[in-house]
């Protein structure tokens, strides 16, 4: 595949016609908690829930689940998915293991040990949860994953009232192609006596908290686990490295929580502290005949019909100057209000405003 242009991608809400593409992605994605269920009926229901979340005029209740697809306009195909659950564990609890450390000391034995324990917790319940990230391997080395992942942050910032002020994301932990996970084998299997895929099937699509409630509620002493399970704690599945690195660059913390099933890292952060959110601006669009300037993530400000794309733009004049083709990709016209953030955020500009204009100062 030739190097694609950054401007040929659009992030948009999934639609019923995307079902075949999403089925294909579900079949290809890594087994685990972040995967889309490889079941047509469940996927169709997921799309319906997402459509409702984007369209509803009701106040947000927290149960909304948004599913985006990334489309390669040059090929006319869906090449990735990403999602947002407005409130993790809505109507239930969201379980994680929290890493804790205690120092045990014996002066007479002249010994002091730092003991790692895992505490089953609900700390992340109610957090906004990033889900369902998948990008076709051919696009992994392009800028498409940036749009697929960070475009969600523009959406969250624009509709902040519908989301929590804290955010988390699960990333798949170590497991083989059959779903065998060393962490599950050492922990969950002792309480289920079955593989995790089998346990999930047995749970019949119920909340995964149903499974977590069968796990031990007292701390797990990591030194008692087999070495491969200890090593798997906080380790990523190979397929999770790309989305994980994007989130780490955003400022997510990966040291505190892990997934209760496969031990993969669950990252979390305050939304307001994420780099894209800190550098986002709301500007009026001004169409130009030719593209110029730095690359930006650019998104519309309408919930229904939301679009995000990558475009060269100039924000130095107080308006967002970008070419008409970019506006067309967003389905918007000259003068529309847009939200944008630099594709590449200057490290030296960390913690400051973008272009000397804070996010809200630039609002139209």
């Amino acid at each position: 595949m030739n190097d694609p242009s950054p401007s040929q991608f659009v992030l948009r809400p999934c639609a019923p016609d995307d079902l075949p593409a999403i089925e294909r992605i579900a079949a290809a994605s890594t087994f685990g908690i972040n995967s889309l269920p490889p079941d047509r009926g469940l996927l169709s229901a997921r799309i319906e829930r997402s459509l409702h979340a984007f369209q509803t005029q009701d106040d947000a209740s927290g149960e909304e689940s948004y599913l985006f697809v990334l489309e390669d306009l040059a090929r006319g195909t869906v090449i990735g998915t990403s999602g947002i659950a407005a409130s993790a564990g809505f109507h239930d609890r969201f379980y994680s293991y929290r890493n804790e450390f205690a120092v045990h000391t014996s002066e007479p034995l002249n010994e002091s040990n730092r003991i790692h324990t895992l505490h089953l917790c609900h700390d992340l319940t109610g957090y906004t949860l990033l889900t369902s990230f998948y990008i076709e391997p051919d696009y992994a080395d392009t800028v498409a994953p940036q749009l697929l992942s960070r475009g969600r942050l523009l959406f969250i910032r624009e509709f902040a009232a519908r989301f929590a002020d804290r955010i988390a994301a699960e990333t798949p932990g170590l497991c083989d192609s059959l779903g065998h996970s060393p962490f599950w084998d050492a922990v969950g299997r002792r309480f289920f006596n079955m593989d995790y895929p089998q346990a999930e099937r047995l749970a019949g699509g119920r909340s995964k908290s149903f499974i977590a409630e069968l796990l031990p509620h007292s701390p797990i002493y990591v030194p008692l686990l087999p070495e491969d399970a200890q090593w798997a704690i906080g380790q990523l599945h190979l397929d999770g490295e790309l989305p994980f690195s994007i989130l780490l660059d955003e400022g997510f913390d990966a040291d505190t929580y892990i997934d209760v099933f496969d031990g993969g890292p669950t990252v979390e952060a305050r939304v307001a502290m994420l780099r894209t959110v800190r550098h986002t601006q709301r500007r009026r669009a001004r169409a130009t005949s030719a593209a110029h300037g730095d690359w930006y993530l650019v998104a519309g400000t309408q919930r229904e019909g939301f679009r995000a794309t990558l475009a060269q733009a100039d924000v130095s004049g107080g308006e967002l100057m970008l070419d008409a083709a970019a506006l067309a990709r967003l389905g918007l016209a000259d003068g529309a209000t847009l939200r944008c953030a630099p594709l590449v955020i200057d490290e030296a500009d960390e913690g400051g405003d973008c272009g000397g204009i804070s996010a809200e100062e630039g609002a139209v």
Partner: protein
Amino acid sequence: MNHLRIRTAVADDLGVISALLADCGRPSGDVVLSDTAGESLLVAESGAGGAVLGCLRLRAAIGLVLPRYWYHVGCTVHAAKDLQLFHRQRTLLLGNNHTGASELADVAWARSGVPLAEQAAVLNLLVQTALLLIARRREGFASHLIVELPGPRDAAGQAPFWQGLGRQFCRRDPLLAREQFGDAWRAHAATLLPRQTVYASFLSSAAQDAIAHVAPFSRVLQDVLEAAGMRYSHHISIDDGGPVLEADVDTLGTVTAGRLWSLVQRDATGPGMPMLVVHGDADNWHGVMAQAVLHGGRLALQPDDLVRLGAQAGEQVWAAPLRSDFAALPAGGHSATDA
């Protein structure tokens, strides 16, 4: 074994006691006669001046200076009826539950070449004597009595239970630490062990198998203690996982049946009742099993038994039926409260 005698240990016994303790897998370095008040170290000998065949230390209250630790073995059930899942899990929780209890400790006995029945006789006499001493000075002991039984160990002396649990948190070799610190090493190691509930299923299968299992050579001791009324109540030792047998002191037959009697001499002929008889004071106890005749508040012994006991007619002794046939005890004598 009819000439067995129990007496308070003296300094000359320490070498033999140390050897017995080592043979029974107990800490054997720096054995002392008594390291706290209210403590008695008893030995069983084969007649006056005979070979020392066993030992037992009676402690009035434990863990009040240096904390003592045990695991409580609990159970938790993880069940999901509609998933048809039902798992019963054993749990271990470190604690000091027996702090303040009285203890039968340092129980060791000669095993090599000794028939099991004779081992049991030695142990039974040691245990029953200790219980009678408790009855004699009931106010000096706690309401709860425990005995730690040795758990399984391999030929090198290593305990699978420690290898599966303790070793993950304490690097020190337990055998070397025990030699250096004696039994106190466990208190030192306990501060390194998990303070929260541990699911036994996280341990190796060998460690799980060792929980509350007694070392094979100690089954005879377990039988003797259980016959005396002690029971496993879900506590184990933190080093080898051996069971802790427990009892409410005032439910033990020997304690409740122990009475103060006035001694008289009887003829060497005629049947008697098997009684455990204890005579002496805090630093010099003697106990023997004798065929006694009870009558009118007096306990009549044959002349030979009086000699073995080191007592004379007219003196007062404590006695209880040696076996569990406590109902056979006739009226007479004085209870611990009376005394």
